[in-house]
């Protein structure tokens, strides 16, 4: 059983490190926004470019600002259980409604 001292496994980042992390997040956001001005890009290409950037920002905030990287692993497991459950359930729902099929894309056109 973990103790109070074990709840925080490692030291949290310093103020300067937090600022550096925020700068990285700002730069990624700038790249994301830049894709808006790329008028020739197809939706599929934008998905391929934007999803890794979104995931990176998501993981940086949860790991460093929310301290999941440093706190007890149980917190990480609880949160990612909910997140993965949501992702799986709603991917199934989207698939059931043919969201990923060519028929759906044709419907949109």
């Amino acid at each position, binding site marked *: *059983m*973990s*103790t*109070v001292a*074990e*709840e925080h496994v490692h030291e*949290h*980042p*310093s*103020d300067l490190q*937090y*600022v550096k*992390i*925020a700068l990285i*997040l*700002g730069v990624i*956001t700038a790249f*994301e*926004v830049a*894709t*808006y001005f790329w008028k020739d890009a197809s*939706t599929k290409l*934008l*998905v391929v470019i*934007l*999803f890794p*950037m*979104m995931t990176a*920002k*998501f993981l940086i*905030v*949860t790991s*460093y*600002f*929310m*301290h999941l990287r440093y706190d*007890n692993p*149980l*917190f990480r497991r*609880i*949160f*990612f*259980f*909910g*997140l993965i*459950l*949501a*992702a799986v*359930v*709603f991917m199934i*729902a*989207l698939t059931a*409604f043919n*969201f990923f099929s060519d028929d759906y894309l044709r419907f*949109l056109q």
Partner: protein
Amino acid sequence: MTDTTVHVPVAEAVHGHRSATGLSNTKLAMWVYLGSDCLLFGSLISTYLLLRHRAVQGPGPKDVFDIPFTSVSSFVLLMSSLTMALAVASIARGDVQRNRAWLATTAMLGGVFIGGQVYEFTTFYREGLGYTTNIFGSAFYTLTGFHGIHVSVGIVMLMSLLVMSIRGNLGPERAEAVEVVGLYWHFVDIVWIVIFTVVYLIP
């Protein structure tokens, strides 16, 4: 006469009540809530994805979205996560003055974000997109409105912490209260990270 005084262990007084895992009940409860809130936002985002291009009348996403404006709002919310992290770090060090300043800054940035959202909703409405105009409008307002309500609740929690601090009730011994509110605030930010990409940037 028996002594009815409850002696709270020092560790519990500082870090809150502990569960059988040895972890703080409050923090554990917040993580469980955040994990369950993923399902709420997952349902709203997937509903929006299914319905956004099915509008047969009224404006669609391309007609109303102002990406440069929303990008500034997104940046403001992202930076509020930095100020929140600095608020948590300062109270953990026992620096009450800085903690107050960072809490106030975070609440102010949250207020700017909400102001931007109110402006955006008002502009969309003037352009002909009401809540019941079409199915895109209903899905969009429901998703972003729910997120806005979350941000507003976060601002109320931040202001409550600020009032507690000014009254002298928020010292380093209650650092966990700031940390738990911080977790909620960062969650609101990561939800917006997803919404900004999926709703606004991917056509």
